[in-house]
């Protein structure tokens, strides 16, 4: 059993890492524990829990920025911002189960609002990270524009805890939009559903969700828009127009979150089988989804059609070859894919050739964590 440690401050976190480095103890970083499924699991000597790094450090509502500790739960942050009529415009999964800000950054979690509001990399203004050498380093700042020095926010985003522990983060935030509406339409084919989605992307509508879902042989497009009433109404009108052109009827959705929530939580709501996450060039989605849908074990496909992030759920009993074929197809189409969660022997999170630029990534890993104590084997470098 790994030893659990819960440092109460950024400095204590850095000291702990330094002691682990000295003793060559491997460390897994754990926030809400909602993403244990992600990345190769190898038992470590220590589990560093970030729950002691909690709370808002600074929030100036008029500046639309907020600085929080890395272990703060995302849901608690949103609740605090909501009392000021503001929100952090990220809608990542697992937030009801306790996903933390640091974990969301480390895993580069994103949701359907990415096309409209950006992903973690677009909203993160600054980070402080505890490093294995015992220091706490800051990158970026607390203002919305800053090009002084290297943009290490980007390096830490998606680094899966392999470079350091995110102890503090500053984000851009926004006022909560006054109006939200959603509607859905069912199409006869993958091509029709994605074509309708694409027509809406090529406008100034900037939907907050544009999701193509495949289940039970149906292709359903769910569209949500948020903002001032008039442009939101217009988005719904445009959906009706593009759907009608394909002979599809539109159904209004009274509670957008009740529909979008389960689509976002595909991993949590499909406890068995394999889930693949692919990032694709926009126009490759229809063919990719169609190919994935042909697999006899494919149960469910959820595509953020505006950002071309496609999740494929294979039912229990799917074999590693089927899963790896779907991963490889994404690569062939010019994108990338990983096993978001899989319980099949021999199925690695990251398969296929090393990422381009792996030698640079390895040098960076060695520079930040020379003894390899942090999250061994979890990242794409294996």
């Amino acid at each position, binding site marked *: 059993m790994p030893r659990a440690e819960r440092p109460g401050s950024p400095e204590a976190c850095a000291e702990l890492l330094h002691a682990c480095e000295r003793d060559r103890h491997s460390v897994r970083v754990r926030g809400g524990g909602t993403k244990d499924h992600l990345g190769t699991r190898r038992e470590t000597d220590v589990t560093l829990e970030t729950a002691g790094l909690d709370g808002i450090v600074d929030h*100036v509502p*008029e*500046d639309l920025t907020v600085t929080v500790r890395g272990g703060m739960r995302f849901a608690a942050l949103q609740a605090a911002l909501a009392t000021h009529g503001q929100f952090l415009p990220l809608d990542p999964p697992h937030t009801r189960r306790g996903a933390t800000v640091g974990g969301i950054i480390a895993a*580069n979690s994103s949701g359907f609002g990415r096309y409209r509001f*950006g992903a973690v*990399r677009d909203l993160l203004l600054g980070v402080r990270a505890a*490093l294995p050498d015992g*220091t706490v*380093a*800051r*990158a970026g*700042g607390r*203002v*919305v*524009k*800053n*090009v*002084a*020095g*290297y*943009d*290490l*926010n*980007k*390096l830490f*985003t*998606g*680094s899966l805890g392999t470079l350091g522990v995110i102890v503090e983060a500053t984000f851009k935030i926004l006022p909560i*939009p*006054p109006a939200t509406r959603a509607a859905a339409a069912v199409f006869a084919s993958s091509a029709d559903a994605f074509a309708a989605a694409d027509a809406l*992307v*090529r406008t*100034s*509508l900037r939907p907050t969700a544009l999701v193509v879902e495949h289940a039970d042989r149906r292709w359903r497009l769910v569209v949500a828009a948020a903002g*001032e009433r*008039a*442009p939101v109404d*217009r988005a719904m009108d445009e959906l009706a127009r593009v759907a009608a052109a394909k002979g599809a009827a539109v159904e209004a959705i009274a509670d957008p979150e009740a529909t979008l929530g389960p689509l976002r939580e595909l991993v949590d709501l499909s406890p068995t089988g394999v889930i693949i996450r692919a*990032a694709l*060039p*926009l126009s*490759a989605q229809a063919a990719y989804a169609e190919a994935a849908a042909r697999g006899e074990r494919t149960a469910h496909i959820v595509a953020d059609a505006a*950002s*071309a*992030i496609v999740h494929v759920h294979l039912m229990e009993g799917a074999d590693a070859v089927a899963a790896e074929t779907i991963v490889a197809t994404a690569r062939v189409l010019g*994108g*990338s894919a*990983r096993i978001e969660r899989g319980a099949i022997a021999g199925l690695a999170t*990251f398969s296929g050739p090393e*990422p*381009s*630029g*792996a030698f*640079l*990534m390895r040098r*960076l890993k060695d*520079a930040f964590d020379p003894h390899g104590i942090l999250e061994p084997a979890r*990242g*794409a*470098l294996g």
Partner: protein
Amino acid sequence: MTAAPAIVRAGLRGAELAAGLRDLLGSEKVLWAREDLLLYEYDGAVDTAMPDAVVLPGDTADVARLARFCAEHGVPLVPRGAGTGLSGGSIPVEGGVVISFARMSRILEIDAPNLRAVVQPGLVNLHLSTAAAPHGLYFVPDPSSQKACTLGGNVAENSGGPHTLAYGVTTNHVTGLELVLSDGTIVRLGGKALEYDGYDLVGTFVGSEGTLGIVTEITVKLTPLPEDKRTLMAAFPTMDDASNTVSAIIGAGIVPSAMEMMDQLSTQAVEASVGAGYPLDAGGILLLEVDGVRDGLDDLLERIEAICRAAHAQELRVATTALERDKLWAGRKGAFAAMGRLASDYYVQDGVIPRTKLPQVLRHVIDVGERYGLRIANVFHAGDGNLHPLIMFDGSKGPAEVERVKEAGREILEMCIEVGGSITGEHGVGMEKNCYMPLQYSPIDMAVMRRVKDAFDPSGLANPGKVFPTPGRCKEFSLHAAR
């Protein structure tokens, strides 16, 4: 203009270097005559330095061969786009080779179905949006120099522009890069999708000012052109009124696509040169734009106008035709050039502050100007809190005057840091502000950046003397700071 003190680094230089490069790449790709090199000793900022040679590569393979040669012979590599940079990024402060991308300026692909374009680094920013327009698309970042500046330079500096308030700066619009590292290795990072395995090296590289390697190909996002827009010029009796308006608009939950501010000195210069139609008696003006689908745009504009009136606006003018809109914008985009009417030289700062500190910091800028007896104009991205104080001076008075101007600039940057801001929002650190980096970052923060530098560029030949404080040049600064 001041020539940077020569820093001697062991390696091949001068005529011998030029001869080696001619043998390597052919004489048509190398400039070495003094009169040719003179054109490459300056950029848009105030420092100058002569390269030993200039190379005009035709493709990535040329750049890789050049880098291998320079690695072997200890020669610094300094990439250069159009030379419009405002922090000395393309100045060869330690000598060596300036790489001009004038011959690598093509659009390789407009991939409209994927909302991407693949371009060479020497492509002029505006040419990309022009080429994308028939597809109903454009490239968002629009620096004021967009008629001249290049995509390679935009990537190096992580450039912004007036319209990045709502839609993001260069880094938010780059998904793939091809690089040549300082040892000649060619690396492809990212692509047309939004995510690839491993660390986000594309994001890490953008804004690294040529110090991590040389960009040879760029994949960018293209964005659907807004269906419609509304442009408003609002004139106020004082800069405080204009500043409060900015906070009030943001506070009302409105994020315009652009929100630019100019003080009276700037509007007077602009009126004399461009004739944009700005009122000469206003203490400050705001140029505002909202865009998107046309539904609701007029309501939004009305709300903004009401906020402006409540903050004592003396005049509100909405552009009713594309021509009128272009005229209003021509004033803003031509503002830096117009300063030539007020003084022979200017030094522009690029500090960023939290929006709520605008009135306080702008008063400090006025105070600095008065204490130094220097005229300072302010033309800036108010919505982002990204200031551009233009300090006017007469360079013919010699290096002492330039130093005095830089000192005034430093006082402004110190205030930006004091209120929680940054020394640069979009112009970069370069060799102009590298001595100020310790104002913003601790030695620990700098050490971490150094690790990144060493991972990409272990030899240190990629644009040396930039971003990181250099012992030789920055000693003087610490003396100043100590006094």
